[in-house]
């Protein structure tokens, strides 16, 4: 089969490159990763590597100006078998095990088609994604719809299924930031499934094909990862473990060059070693560990940070506070906990009360539920309440749609459904976008009082806090009541003080006397 080599994405804003020179000639046999030509953009010169081993068929001339994605060459991978592979169809039965592609030993047959796997459109306003991790390795046999990668976007992590079955050829690497529509992998489409042991054979033979004559050198042995004397010294000085270095020497031995190219895993370590190189051992040793650790910011984290700062800069945000006597709600919960759970198979929590109260108040003060869209104010006749959920990867805000029309149990079960998905990183973009108001509960972590930041483009956010027994004056007497402070941060550009304060007072009233929720008074 033949593999198309196209002009790769070389950077933002670069749309075309010039073919500076061919390093290989038409008809040359090239190894995987061998440099085949040099390309020039207006910013730099770079080399193009063969994506597979095979015979090169040149499709563009030196000096040609080529667009990104345009065909540059084809590699006939069948020819990498040193003459034994491509003609295997007829006599394959005689020596099945040595044939390429498992033509006869497995039922899978290459169709010759190579399918490009592109990043799909994952949501409005998302232009680039990060390759989180490859779930399959280069050369693996993948089935249709099998998950091959995890893709991180600003908002979520998504799985990326194979669109055909065949041999996977990775184009992008883990951690790469790629634009929507970019090719991140190719599948050499195959018909039928490999037999039970076919997949490993398939893998082996296809690796053979790509590795060409290097087959015997790529196997793992006891010596894999063994550093040569010079390499070992270099690695010690860099503070790099030989286990973190991919050896290119025979059987994966680490050569001096491998060690010279090895990267220190974290910047902190690097500075540590370079410091110890400059100073000889006389530094007084501090007791205790003093390591620091750097990690790459995930797309999600980057987005969170960018957006939070933007809110601070672009809105007129301030916060109003109030306190809520939680005793009536707690009494109701105590009284109906069992029967509620029995009937709806979901616990009666505080969130349903708050959501219901907020919906009633939002109806009365629509600007709190509205938002600014350039020169227009947008109001909604529905309440899509975003609920802030803390996940290992950061804060997400899935949306309870039309919360104003939901019953208590519906709200509770919807929140549980969304929170579970959020923690598993399975929320879809749709489930996270389009809220009109947000509730965040810092109380679950013990917060007494805070000023939440608005979830843009919304105009207000309600902050719940912990419930503490406090002495309160009631009818001229001091009584101890369970009190929660509540905070409403709002965008003063659209919400005035009267509206925000009245909104929060209304929420307070509804919570302190839940029968009002029923009567809507």
């Amino acid at each position: 089969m033949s593999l198309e080599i196209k002009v790769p994405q070389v950077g933002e804003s670069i749309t075309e490159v010039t073919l500076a020179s061919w390093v290989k000639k038409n008809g040359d046999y090239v190894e995987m990763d061998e440099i085949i030509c040099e390309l020039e953009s207006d910013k730099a010169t770079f080399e193009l590597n063969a994506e597979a081993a095979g015979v090169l068929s040149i499709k563009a001339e030196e000096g040609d100006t080529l667009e990104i994605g345009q065909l540059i060459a084809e590699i006939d991978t069948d020819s990498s078998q040193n003459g034994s592979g491509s003609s295997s169809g007829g006599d394959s039965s005689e020596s099945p095990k040595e044939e390429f592609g498992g033509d006869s030993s497995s039922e899978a047959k290459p169709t010759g088609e190579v399918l490009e796997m592109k990043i799909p459109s994952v949501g409005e306003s998302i232009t680039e994604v990060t390759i989180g991790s490859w779930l399959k390795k280069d050369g693996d046999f993948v089935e249709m719809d099998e998950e091959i990668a995890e893709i991180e976007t600003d908002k979520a992590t998504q799985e990326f299924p194979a669109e055909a079955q065949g041999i996977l050829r990775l184009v992008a690497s883990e951690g790469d930031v790629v634009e929507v529509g970019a090719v991140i992998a190719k599948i050499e489409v195959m018909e039928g499934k490999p037999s039970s042991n076919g997949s490993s054979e398939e893998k082996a033979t296809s690796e053979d094909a790509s590795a060409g004559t290097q087959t015997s050198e790529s196997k793992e042995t006891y010596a894999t990862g063994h550093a040569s004397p010079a390499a070992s010294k270099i690695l010690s000085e860099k503070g790099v473990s030989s286990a973190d270095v991919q050896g290119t020497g025979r059987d994966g031995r680490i050569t001096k060059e491998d060690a010279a190219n090895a990267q220190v895993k974290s910047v902190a370590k690097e500075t540590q070693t370079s410091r110890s190189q400059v100073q000889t051992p006389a530094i007084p040793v501090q007791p205790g560990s003093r390591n620091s650790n750097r990690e790459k910011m995930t797309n999600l984290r980057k987005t969170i940070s960018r957006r939070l700062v933007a809110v601070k800069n672009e809105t007129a945000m301030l916060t109003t506070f109030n306190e809520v006597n939680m005793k009536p709600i707690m009494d109701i919960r105590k009284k109906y906990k069992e029967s509620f759970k029995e009937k709806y198979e979901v616990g009666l929590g505080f969130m349903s009360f708050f959501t219901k109260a907020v919906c009633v108040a939002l109806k009365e003060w629509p600007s709190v539920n509205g938002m600014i869209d350039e020169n227009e104010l947008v109001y909604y006749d529905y309440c899509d309440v975003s609920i802030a959920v803390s996940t290992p990867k950061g804060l997400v805000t899935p949306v309870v749609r039309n919360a104003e029309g939901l019953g208590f149990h519906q709200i509770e079960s919807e929140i549980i459904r969304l929170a579970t998905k959020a923690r598993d990183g399975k929320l879809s973009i749709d489930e996270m976008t389009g809220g009109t108001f947000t509730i965040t509960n810092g109380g679950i972590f013990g917060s007494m009082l805070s000023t939440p930041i608005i979830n843009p483009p919304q105009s207000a956010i309600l902050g719940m806090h912990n419930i503490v027994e406090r002495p309160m004056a009631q009818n001229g007497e001091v009584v101890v009541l369970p009190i929660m402070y509540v905070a409403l941060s709002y965008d003063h550009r659209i919400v005035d003080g009267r509206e925000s304060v009245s909104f929060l007072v209304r929420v307070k009233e509804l919570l302190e006397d839940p029968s009002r929720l029923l009567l809507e008074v």
Partner: protein
Amino acid sequence: MTYDVTIIGSGPGGYIAAVRCAQLGMKTAIIEKYNTLGGTCLNVGCIPSKALLDSSEHYHNAETTFSEHGIELKNLKVNLEQMIRRKSEVVKQTTDGVDYLMKKNKIDVFSGLGSFVDKNTIKVEKEDGEEEIKTDKVIIATGSKPSSLPFIELDKKRVITSTEALELKEVPKHMIIIGGGIIGMELGSVYGRLGSKVSVVEYLDSLIPTMDRTMGKELQKATKKLGFEFYLSHKVTGVENKGKEVIVSAETPKGKTLELKGDYCLVSVGRKPYTEGLGLENIGIETDKQGRIEVNEDLRTKVDNIWAIGDVVKGAMLAHKAEEEGVVVAERIAGQKPHVNYLLIPGVVYTWPEVASVGHTEEALKESGKAYKKGSFPFKASGRARASMDTDGLVKVLADKETDEILGVHICGPRAADMIAEAVVAMEYRASAEDIGRISHAHPTFTESFKEACLAASDNRPLNI
């Protein structure tokens, strides 16, 4: 002025450390007690013994193998005085070479006994007075000197050490050697070839006992042809100088008393670290039971600006081990992180046939319970060895039974000392026996025998036997 580094002792460890320090940009001084640089190795060890070994080997060949080669000689005789003079000339050329290296690298040389005043001050007692050197760091490389047994009086006339054995005025009629280790076997070979009767008394049951047993056996066979007599498992109980005669008494394995009479007795029972007069007590450094300076993995003493290398610390007493340590310490002082692979420091005996070995001995593998396979190839089967009439000995390769990784290589044969380098390189890269079997070796060479032994070890398929 203050030196960055001062090295005490100019043997192969010390002078190499000095050169490396200077290369790394340190202001370096070196102190040597004797008049010439180079230490034991260059003055009274490796170099002079090899000079005499080569001379005596030529004589021996002329006497025993030349006629077979078709070369006839008359009136062949030994001129020991000239042999010793040539040896001294070789030594002088070599130590002059060290002088040149010190000048070239701008290293200041102080002649005299160096001793610590404190950890940054070293006093040098010179012929014409004292001088004190200030230094930031110190490398102790004072080496070792021949040791003896408590009841033996070394008179250095009849009862001698290796140092005197390199300066004899006559060829002994009967040289009794106490200790069948490397030094005893080498110097015994010199005089054995020149016509001495040689008797070796060894306490253990094997010659060169630190090496693989096969090596001792092979060496014993080969030197027996020279007329050596061996008294293994014999415990020397007394040495008596009777003027022109030395009487050595020993206890036989059966508990009887043996008396050997000769005109010279060479005591070669090992060497001991040399730290006398160094003033270690002034800086709080102590030595262990064997007199060695204790160092950590980085060869640093407990005083943090002082390192020690070579024979004065633990490990094999070998010039090339000291050299490796000298380089490593110099680089560590400069903040680099090299290390010495002690397992792969080869051991060499310059008898003829030579003995050389690297890695684990078969005895050590057995003891550790490691599953191994072995292959050997005798030089009898080597065309190259037949051509030069050097058919004694063999190559023995030990490899991991599972992985085929080479674990030890032991050679007794012609040019073994040079051949072992290939085995060291192979083992540094963790080559398998089959790897060596698949690497082309020029023909005809002695090194083909290593390839054959590897083929034998790997898959029992030597091609030429």
